[in-house]
């Protein structure tokens, strides 16, 4: 009986009419991405640059108009040394990067997978890392001469350090729960490394790889501006002597394209290889 009285006294909704509408909460996330949104900023900058040049508000000697830069680029490409310079620069970066990548991976595997390797390698690399690589330039010139070898060696060092550090950290930071699982499943040492350790270290490797790619361009630019007799940096250095700001801008533009393209390629590979990661946040 008491139950009945309770229900009647505690009558539900007040008789004031309709129930209040559910109000959607204010959205705090920025919302959906605009298509090609990342191009908007750069395009705006170029538009402003073009407008200012057309209006004669920029000193053409300091900042030439965008079309002047394009014209110079076309001219240098067809009549000048630009193709050869680009090729030389690309080769330096590619050789240095390839050697750095190989060294970084090899050393990281050797030191991440064996205690003896770690004892020999890790401390040495940490020491190497403490010395800013560009500070090694004078010594390397003494040892290797001002040729291509020394440039490639410096780029390789700039590249291998971040790749080694990130890959080694990922290899040795393997989740102990996965180690236990591999033991339970009776994996051989080799199968454990191949199926558990290396796939688990790939995200860390890619962090290092992207730093390495950036580093190879940085090393290239610095080396080519210090002392070179060919290559993009040399072209720009010459242009500085003759006050050709348009040529310098062409060089910068090409450096930018290098950086952008290589980073996109690495991102693309990373997305492919680590496709399983995209499912985690869901």
């Amino acid at each position: 009986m008491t139950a009945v009285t309770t229900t009647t006294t505690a009558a539900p909704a007040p008789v004031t009419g309709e129930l209040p509408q559910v109000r959607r909460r204010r959205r705090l996330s920025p919302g959906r991405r605009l298509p090609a949104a990342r191009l908007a900023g750069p395009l705006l900058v170029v538009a402003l640059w073009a407008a200012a040049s057309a209006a004669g508000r920029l000193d053409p000697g300091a900042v030439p108009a965008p079309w002047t830069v394009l014209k110079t680029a076309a001219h240098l490409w067809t009549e000048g040394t630009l193709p050869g310079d680009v090729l030389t620069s690309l080769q330096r970066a590619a050789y240095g990067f390839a050697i750095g990548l190989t060294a970084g991976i090899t050393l990281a595997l050797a030191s991440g997978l064996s205690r003896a390797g770690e004892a020999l390698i890790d401390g040495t690399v940490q020491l190497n890392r403490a010395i800013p690589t560009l500070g090694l330039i004078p010594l390397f010139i003494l040892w290797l001469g001002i040729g291509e070898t020394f440039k490639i060696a410096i780029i390789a060092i700039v590249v291998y350090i971040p790749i080694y550090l990130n890959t080694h950290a990922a290899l040795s930071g393997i989740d102990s729960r996965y180690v236990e699982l591999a033991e339970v499943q009776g994996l051989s040492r080799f199968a454990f490394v191949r199926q558990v350790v290396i796939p688990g270290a790939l995200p860390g490797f890619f962090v290092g790889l992207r730093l390495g790619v950036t580093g190879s361009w940085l090393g290239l630019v610095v080396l080519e501006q210090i002392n070179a007799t060919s290559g993009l940096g040399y072209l720009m250095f010459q242009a500085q002597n003759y006050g050709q700001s348009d040529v310098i801008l062409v060089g910068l533009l090409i450096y930018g394209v290098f950086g952008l393209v290589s980073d996109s390629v690495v991102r693309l590979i990373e997305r492919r290889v680590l496709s399983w990661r995209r499912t985690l946040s869901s």
Partner: protein
Amino acid sequence: MAPHTEQLTRPAVRLQGLTRSFDGRTVLDGIDLDLPAGQFTALLGHSGSGKSTLLRAVAGLDHGVAGTGQLTAPERVSVVFQDSRLLPWRRVLDNVLLGLDGKDAVERGRAALAEVGLKGRERAWPGQLSGGEAQRAALARSLVREPELLLADEPFGALDALTRIKMHSLLRDLWKRHRPSVLLVTHDVDEAIVLADRVLVLERGRIGLDLTIDHPHPRSYREPVLGEYRERLLAALGVTEDHA
């Protein structure tokens, strides 16, 4: 009557005077225990009582832990952990096949997934599974190796109540079909009573109570007969229920 009595003569696991200690603190204090082949045993105990320590010793996973005693366990042992421990970079089927080789491995993996109700999810990534599905995949991974001994350390502890009930009947069905010896570690008295034919209570480093539950399956939590077992187990765990 306990099922398959004839199987229960040959011990699958034998512990004799097993001790384990951490930093001089004794966790297992001379445990003597036989687990007959094909028996479904549950191991109860408070948090920190040493259940995982015991299970890891039987699994051979306690590298570097101080201890003495004799330990015999079968060749083929599988372990199910509280987390499903699927490798996120391998698809579900490849996770089930981890460490398995042989021509028919893929077929067996598929069959095991079908058995736990994950047919069609072979190519899913672990990150796409719900907690219950992931744990079922982990069960498939341990069963595909046809273990003689299945060790499970609170395998359902991270699941919601509804999923847990489903997993209970799944585990019992799988056990009936494959007949491994099972040692199920849990802190849930009801889970132990519903699933196991024998319940051990670990107290102060020893087996404080060894209770055979002689009651037909499937069991429900609410059966009054089981209430008696429940009270005995709770008493052994030092928990008194207030019925007032």
